[in-house]
């Protein structure tokens, strides 16, 4: 009764002031840390976009050069230079002068390292030509028509440690010091040297239209291991003055340029002029082969440069065709220098203007006027990172070049390009091959096309199932069943795409190949069979009908659909014997010209559709479920059937939500990697054929990224593909999210 406490009032612990100050302090620290942490996380999230941009931007930056700096001025450089080359580290250069001296000198201070006399006293050098590759082989033609061969190469000496590395130059005579009599009458005006594994070839053009071709077949002596040459000389006389001469790397085609702007295409075996191609109406002033020795670059006296290469037609006949033209010079082209390791080249005209081009991208990378005018000799470093220029008055200049990604341009990424050895311009993605002379083909169009194709077929499979399913679940389904169906769809969403992909590639693709007719017939059999069943069910008076309450139809339909699927594959499929001569696949390829790959777009469409269905389903279902019931009740009260209410009232109200669901699903389909990787053939072809594979941007990144050299053009282009995917999904998802937010506001006002 009396609940007065027996003891006195409870002791309240009084905390000290410092404790409360500590509490306030803790609060402040906590808010600082949390604030910092939150911002750091947000920054990390945004870092992705910025890092992608950071890696991609250098692709589109222009090439740069430094100012040409004076290296020095030496008297011995005044003797006219006939040949100049630079070694890899840009420290030592090699030149041959008019008197026949082969000199190695240091760039730093222009110290002369070595000087060797080639040729006898009094023999003056007419011209010299280096071999196309990096062998360092040089042919020196003297005025009396004799030709000597020498080789310049370099070794590194680390004897004093890594820091004090020395470049040691060496002059060799791998083919002996004897001079060859190539043109006994003298008067050599053009010289070409080409050394490949089987043959060493010298071609000389003389005044008056004389051409001499010396072929030296290499044979390895089994006993001594030495290489012996079997020489044969052939002559060709033409009726025009040869302005320039060059030869292809496979030694099959000889190119002669004349003063009327025409290129003569000569077969070296028959020594017949197979074709004459008019390149310009001005005379040809310079010709050179591009890396790989397939394309020939022709410069004329008006400053135009043209690229040609032989194109094979269906009958295996070669014809020389003009591929592209490059502009930018107004004066005669003095020299065309190809890059040693890329498909780019540099040109200098007589007025001293320098241009750097890239052949595949078809673009001019850099144009600059050289301050000191046209040099008398030029050498491009092997890495194309520097240019050495020698002038008549004996001074030398050096210029650094920063040209990292010349092969990338908007045209080379997105339009058709005529690649070497192709019949016509095409979209090709082929990023690397085994040799250095390979022309990288970076067209993103086949990949973007593949991505769209996969996404489209996936949406085609997913949209009907997801949207119709969502409409039923939100509107007609009984709440109890809905509570079971929603988690099942969530489980569907949680399934890893690896598993979907491997099932598609290892089980579904062979299954489809075996039962193509059956699976295709499912598209007809299932709807028709289903409707027939529905009609008979509605009309019948079976007792079973009472068990299936309203809103539980899907449960009833489960066995029905399963039976229809089995019927379709087991019974309708074999009917293909009647209609398609036994095999649908062979019929397709024979009659309709549609080829069939085992792993094709249909497989991907189904698998990726499966992955995307739950995403679209949940969002669309939320949108339709969220429509206020009053709208539906009103419509039904006015006499509409449930279906009419759904289609005329509910769906239009929820349409923004459904639209956003589709957008998010599309974003998901575009970015999907594993399914595509496993269920397609990963071939970058551009074909809408349902039964052929494709390669998507995402799968391409997964396949090629681990093998890509860091910061190379290929690496950055893959990052560009990732950036494209990122931006696409970001834009699509933001749009969808904004639409959904607007929809939520709209519902709350209803």
């Amino acid at each position, binding site marked *: 009764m009396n609940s007065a406490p027996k003891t006195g009032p409870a002791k309240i612990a009084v905390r000290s002031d410092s404790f409360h100050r500590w509490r306030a302090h803790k609060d402040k620290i906590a808010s600082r840390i949390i604030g910092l942490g939150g911002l750091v996380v947000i920054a*990390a999230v945004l870092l992705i976009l910025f890092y992608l941009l950071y890696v991609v931007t250098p692709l589109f930056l222009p090439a740069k050069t430094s100012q040409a700096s004076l290296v020095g001025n030496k008297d011995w450089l005044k003797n006219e230079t006939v040949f100049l080359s630079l070694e890899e580290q840009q420290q030592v250069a090699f030149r041959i002068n008019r008197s026949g001296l082969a000199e190695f000198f240091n760039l730093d201070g222009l110290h002369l390292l070595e000087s060797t006399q080639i040729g006898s006293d009094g023999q003056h050098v007419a011209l010299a030509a280096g071999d196309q590759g990096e062998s360092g082989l040089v042919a020196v033609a003297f005025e009396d028509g004799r030709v000597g061969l020498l080789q310049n190469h370099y070794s590194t000496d680390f004897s004093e440690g890594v820091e004090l590395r020395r470049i040691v130059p060496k002059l060799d005579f791998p083919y002996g010091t004897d001079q060859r009599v190539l043109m006994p009458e003298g008067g050599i005006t053009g010289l070409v040297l080409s050394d490949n594994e089987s043959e060493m070839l010298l071609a000389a053009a003389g005044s008056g239209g004389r051409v001499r071709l010396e072929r030296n077949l290499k044979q390895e002596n089994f006993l001594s291991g030495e290489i012996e040459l079997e020489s044969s000389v052939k002559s060709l006389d033409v009726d025009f003055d040869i302005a320039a001469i060059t030869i292809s790397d496979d030694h099959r085609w000889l190119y002669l340029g004349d003063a009327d702007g025409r290129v003569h295409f000569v077969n070296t075996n028959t020594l017949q002029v197979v074709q004459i191609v008019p390149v310009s109406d001005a005379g040809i002033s310079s010709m050179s082969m591009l890396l790989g020795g397939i394309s020939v670059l022709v410069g004329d006296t008006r400053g135009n440069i043209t690229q040609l290469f032989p194109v094979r037609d269906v009958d295996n006949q070669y014809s020389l065709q003009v591929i592209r033209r490059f502009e930018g010079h107004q004066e005669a082209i003095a020299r065309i220098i190809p890059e040693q390791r890329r498909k780019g080249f540099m040109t200098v005209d007589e007025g001293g203007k320098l241009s750097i081009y890239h052949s595949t991208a078809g673009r001019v990378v850099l144009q600059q006027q050289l301050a000191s005018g046209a040099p008398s000799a030029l050498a491009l470093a092997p890495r194309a990172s520097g240019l050495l220029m020698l002038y008549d008055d004996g001074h030398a200049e050096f210029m650094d070049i920063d040209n990292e990604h010349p092969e990338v341009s908007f045209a080379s990424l997105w339009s058709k390009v005529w690649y070497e050895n192709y019949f016509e311009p095409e979209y090709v993605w082929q990023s690397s091959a085994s040799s250095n002379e390979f022309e990288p083909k970076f067209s993103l169009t086949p990949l973007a096309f593949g991505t769209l194709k996969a996404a489209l077929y996936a949406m085609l499979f997913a949209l009907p199932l997801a949207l119709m399913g969502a409409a039923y679940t939100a509107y007609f389904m009984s709440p109890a069943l809905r509570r079971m169906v929603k988690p099942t769809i969530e489980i569907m969403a949680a399934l*890893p795409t690896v598993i979907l992909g491997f099932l598609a590639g290892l089980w579904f693709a062979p299954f489809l190949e075996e039962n193509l007719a059956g699976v295709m017939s499912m598209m007809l059999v299932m709807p028709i069979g289903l409707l027939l069943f529905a009609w008979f069910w509605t009309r019948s008076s079976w007792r079973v009908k009472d068990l299936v309450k309203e809103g539980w139809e899907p449960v009833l339909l489960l066995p029905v659909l399963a039976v229809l699927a089995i019927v379709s594959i087991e019974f309708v499929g074999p009917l293909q014997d009647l209609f398609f001569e036994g095999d649908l696949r062979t019929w397709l390829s024979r009659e309709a010209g549609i080829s069939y790959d085992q792993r094709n777009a249909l497989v991907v469409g189904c698998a990726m559709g499966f992955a995307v269905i739950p995403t679209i389903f949940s969002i669309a279902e939320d949108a339709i479920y969220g429509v206020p019931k009053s709208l539906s009740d009103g419509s039904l009260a006015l006499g509409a059937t449930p279906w009419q209410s759904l289609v005329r009232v509910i769906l239009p109200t929820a349409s923004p939500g459904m639209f956003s669901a589709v957008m998010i699903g599309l974003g998901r389909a575009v970015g999907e990697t594993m399914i595509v990787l496993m269920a397609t053939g990963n071939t970058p072809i551009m074909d809408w054929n349902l039964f052929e594979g494709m390669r998507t941007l995402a799968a391409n990144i997964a396949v090629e*990224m681990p093998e890509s050299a860091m910061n190379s053009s290929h690496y950055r282009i893959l990052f560009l593909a990732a950036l494209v995917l990122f931006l696409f999904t970001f834009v699509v998802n933001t749009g969808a999210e904004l639409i959904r937010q607007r929809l939520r506001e709209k519902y709350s006002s209803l």
Partner: protein
Amino acid sequence: MKTLVKWIADGTPWVWLNAAAVSASILLVVGLLLLIGVRGMAHFWPLAVQKIVYQQVDGSELILAGQIREKEKVTAKRLRESGLEVAQGSEFVTRYLLKTGNRDILGQDFRWILEPSIKSVNKPLSMVVFEREEWGVFIGMLIGVREAGELLDNRDTWGAFQQNLDHANRLRDEISDLEKNRIGSVNYRIERLRLKQRGLEIKGRDTAENLAKIESARVLLQEEYELLEQELGELYTRLRRDAVLVNTVDGQEIELPMSSIVYAYQPNQMHLGGKIGHFFHNVWRFVADDPREANTEGGIFPAIFGTVLMVLLMSVFVTPLGVVAAVYLKEYARQGLFTRFIRIAVNNLAGVPSIVYGVFGLGFFVYTLGGSLDRLFFQEALPAPTFGTGGLFWASLTLALLTLPVVIVSTEEGLSRIPRSIREGSLALGATKWETLWRTVLPMASPGIMTGLILAVARAAGEVAPLMLVGVVKLAPALPLDGNAPFLHLDRKFMHLGFHIYDVGFQSPNVEAARPLVYATALLLVVVIVLLNLVAIQVRNRLSERYRGLES
């Protein structure tokens, strides 16, 4: 007829079609799970060995023994087109895929046989299936055991064989422990000495004194190694002492070294109980053993271990970061355009393709950060990269970034379910904001945090695309966690369940042998993920129930 027209005009057929869409989706999911389940579990069930007398094309008879793996019906026309003779009058021909094993003798371990050409089939009780370390499975009959060259004379050859096999397996375990753990530890320490020496050279402190210290330590380790090597040699000699004499089904007598046999069973003699026991034993071996034969046989323990370790590490990163970010966004930041923009950004990041995260991880984490770490701290090892290449640490970070949006969204959802009245009440009683958060709000939001974490873990277990770029490999020689300091090797590459499925299914040298393994691994992965998701759904449901009453 009129009712039909009315039925159509009412729109009811469309309703049925919509219902069918739901059923189709359900069927697809259930069908897929059943397919994986059945085929996955079939890998563990011991199949009977059939002895088949087969008539070949040229009329000669061939005796085969094997397990029937698949059965399919092909058109007679297709067989004729490929050159095989088929008797007229039959439209379809059944053919079986027989796993004969014995790849070292027969050249192939699977072959297709046509049903009409089978002359007789029976199941001899004495057929034994031997699982081996190399060359796959051997199917034959046991003759006897040879111990040190002498054939044992024993009534119960099977029992003697099993005893001997147990002994050999114990020796094999000892050898494995010796090689991996003890010799591995010595090698690891020798390598550390080498790196230490190189480090001294780089810093210029490689005086004679320091070098002598290192050299003496190396000498000690070398001695230890030699002792261990001797022990290993002895173990190997003992292991190689025994062999088992077997007969192939067509009468060839082969001697198999006991060291190559891992497990053996007689499927034709097993009754149902034995088969069930064998089934569970196989499941255990699958989960606990290392892979053999280029991942086409054996178990997937390293993949499970790698996945679990990576997921743990990822959780350690993602939970604090995600919770802090969500708390900041919800409780501390001023709600305006900025936070709205951030929320949209975070939601979108959940939808960004996972390969983009992989690319970012490779470029930024591995090359940039990892390269810098190498230059600063691991110069001795250069040019071999330590952190400048993919590994456990970078993979966990990348996946943490990938699953961060999931945790943030889930935590925010959990926080938003807590009614304002609770926060206001706590503040009214004099608690600071931090104390409210720490003692009241966060514990109430912990189910939401847990849901987020579980969903993140489920996603990380299944994501493969980014991992392909940042540090998962087909076969890792060592686990990232072992007995050598620093015990957790964050720079090591590891194996992952999802990637294992991709690798074994598509980059395997022997596709037929690998296929059951792929289904089994997929089954394991699906079971784990489905369980995790069901738990998350339950937690979320319970959470929304609990607080429904609190909201006014």
